[in-house]
């Protein structure tokens, strides 16, 4: 039973990484931008929930408000920070540095508005306790189910809908897509909105699971999710999910093996191994650089 709960623990924290990694991977897939501010969008979502619940808003409104606010924030960030760079074919490194700048800006803005300290989140979802070996795993199960649903939804969106087709076209060749009558600007905006909304779903689950938020919370979370996305093959949606779950499992496995002090080292060692033997990631396709 102990091993079952440890596997569930790993999958539970892995599914939080997954929700962040999905957004990372999708944005990268469409605009080839590693959006380092993505982890901080989770923080924005968390503080939106904190503010709304603090104003005694009902839970559904706090959740919906957080998702809506993050989607808008994602669009605003794209417009203000990335738009001109993307349209003027700025070098990749300029985009990357801008993303890091946005990340630092968001962290400091939150510190300025809310102070540097952790804020408590009230109990959000009261789920019936599901006990495995005496441990309540209902939150963990919720996280796993929501992450899987989001992955499936995203996969359907990208592969079966019209806007999904436009996203894939923009990803493949933005210039040609424009010639075919696709408004790549609005496709990119849509991508950021969906990515940020996904991050907000992550924020909801994070707040519900850990009941505490802080301005710097996006840093390590974003980094782990980034590792997960690269691990699974950045740009691939099932890959991000798979990478995140493996990451979570590796973490709890390191505890089972009595190496909890080396948890992060195990995670990053795994990343190095996969990069050595499968540089494109588990499910990533190796794409040749266009000249």
């Amino acid at each position, binding site marked *: 039973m102990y091993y079952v709960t440890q596997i569930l623990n790993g999958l539970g924290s892995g599914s939080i990484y997954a929700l962040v990694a999905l957004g990372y991977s999708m944005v990268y897939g469409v605009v080839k931008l590693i959006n380092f501010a993505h982890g901080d969008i989770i923080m924005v979502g968390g503080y939106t929930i904190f503010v709304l619940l603090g104003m005694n808003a009902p839970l559904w409104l706090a959740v919906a408000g957080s998702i809506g606010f993050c989607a808008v924030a994602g669009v605003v960030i794209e417009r203000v920070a990335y738009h001109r760079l993307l349209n003027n074919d700025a070098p990749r490194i300029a985009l990357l540095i801008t993303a890091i700048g946005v990340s630092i800006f968001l962290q400091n803005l939150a510190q300025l508005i809310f102070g540097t300290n952790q804020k408590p989140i*009230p109990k959000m979802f009261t789920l019936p306790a599901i006990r495995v070996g005496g441990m309540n795993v209902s939150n963990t199960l919720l996280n796993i189910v929501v992450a899987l649903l989001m992955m499936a939804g995203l996969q359907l969106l990208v592969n079966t809908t019209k806007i999904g087709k436009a996203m894939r076209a923009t990803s493949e060749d933005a210039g040609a897509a424009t010639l075919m009558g696709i408004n790549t600007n609005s496709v990119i905006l849509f991508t950021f909105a969906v990515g940020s909304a996904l991050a907000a779903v992550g924020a909801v689950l994070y707040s519900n699971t850990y009941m505490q938020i802080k301005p710097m919370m996006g840093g390590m979370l974003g980094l782990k999710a980034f590792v997960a996305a690269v691990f699974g093959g950045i740009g691939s949606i099932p890959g991000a999910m798979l990478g995140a779950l493996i990451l979570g499992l590796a973490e709890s496995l390191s505890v089972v093996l009595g190496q909890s002090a080396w*948890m992060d080292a195990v995670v990053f060692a795994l990343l190095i191994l996969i990069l050595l033997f499968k540089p494109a990631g588990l499910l990533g396709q190796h794409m040749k650089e266009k000249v």
Partner: protein
Amino acid sequence: MKKVFSLLLVAMVLLAFAACGGGGGQTSDSSTPPASGSASTAPSGDLPDEIIIGGLAPLTGGVAQYGIASNNGTMLAVDEINAAGGILGKPIKYIPYDEQGDPTEATTAYDRLVNEDGIVALIGDITTGPTLAVAQKALADNMPMITPTGTGAAITAVGPNIFRTCFTDPYQGELMANYAADRLEATTAAILYDTGDDYSKGVADAFEAAAPALGITITAKEGYQSGAVDFNSQLAKIKEGNPDVVMAPCYYGDAALILAQARDLGIDAYFLGPDGYETTAQKVDPSNYDILNKVYYCHHYAMSDPGPRLQEVIDAYKAKYGEDDENLNGFTILGYESMYIMAAAIEAAGSVDSQAIIDALTNLNYEGVSGAINFGGGQDPAREAVIIEFVDGEEKLLGTYSF
């Protein structure tokens, strides 16, 4: 391949950013008049116009709550001392800098205090990591230094010029192990600690070392990385051993996270903590206050049951910073007392000569707000601890304890 490695490189850069990210600087907030004339250390016997004392504290960043609390206390003491005529008839000019809880920032700020501001003594730093870094530099300058709250055992071992107002990490670990055996009749214990934090590790190691002689078996000793938010795996392992008590030395933010997850996993054991647990209740929503049941931690003072002298300080604090200021806690009093101790030492030395102040500190007998503090010829004070529990989110004094 090359692209992927550049991604890795970027990840490293981001890590570095995460490690040193934080708010802006903090300038002097002393209520004394601005500097006039020479600001450098005067030769002994020849007093400067002002006694310039530096301060280092995290005023922004993850542990800002402690820095702000301690620094506010120090500034309150400066006001009181200056109102009463200063030290040796000269006013104190107190210059605090924000080091964001970061050792590199702290040493940079220290250099600025010494080279630009010409301090004669230092109150700081607050947390163990940055304090150790600053202590190395202070040793080279033979700078009289008191850390109000740096509990790491190694701090005062750096050099004879470094003192502290609080008790040490090993002392807290040993104390709580004794408390567990004596009062909670524990025979088994588990430990959960932050592998990247000297404070957490110091308390954990001392607890582990003290346990066998007290008849306590350690069922598990689990670590986590600084900044981690998910402790479920470690706690699941701890639960397997079914310990009587869990020693989880950390600061308030982690404590709230760990307790929530532990109770959710069905761990009903006593949780023991060091003084970093203070204000944990503020990080827990009232709807979850039940997770704080059976949580005991040790501290220097109990704000909920103050003696008359402590009450006076609390009143003075509220008069200066407002009735509802959230930064009033035990760390405030440590910061407050540190300035009084330094002032008393300079008064006794009769000069601002570094060695004279250090000698005076070593032999000082200071009547503190909760009893006498003296360094007994050493650098760590002899003090008694209070044990505090949470009742409905309020911190309640359980009693004083020493072993």
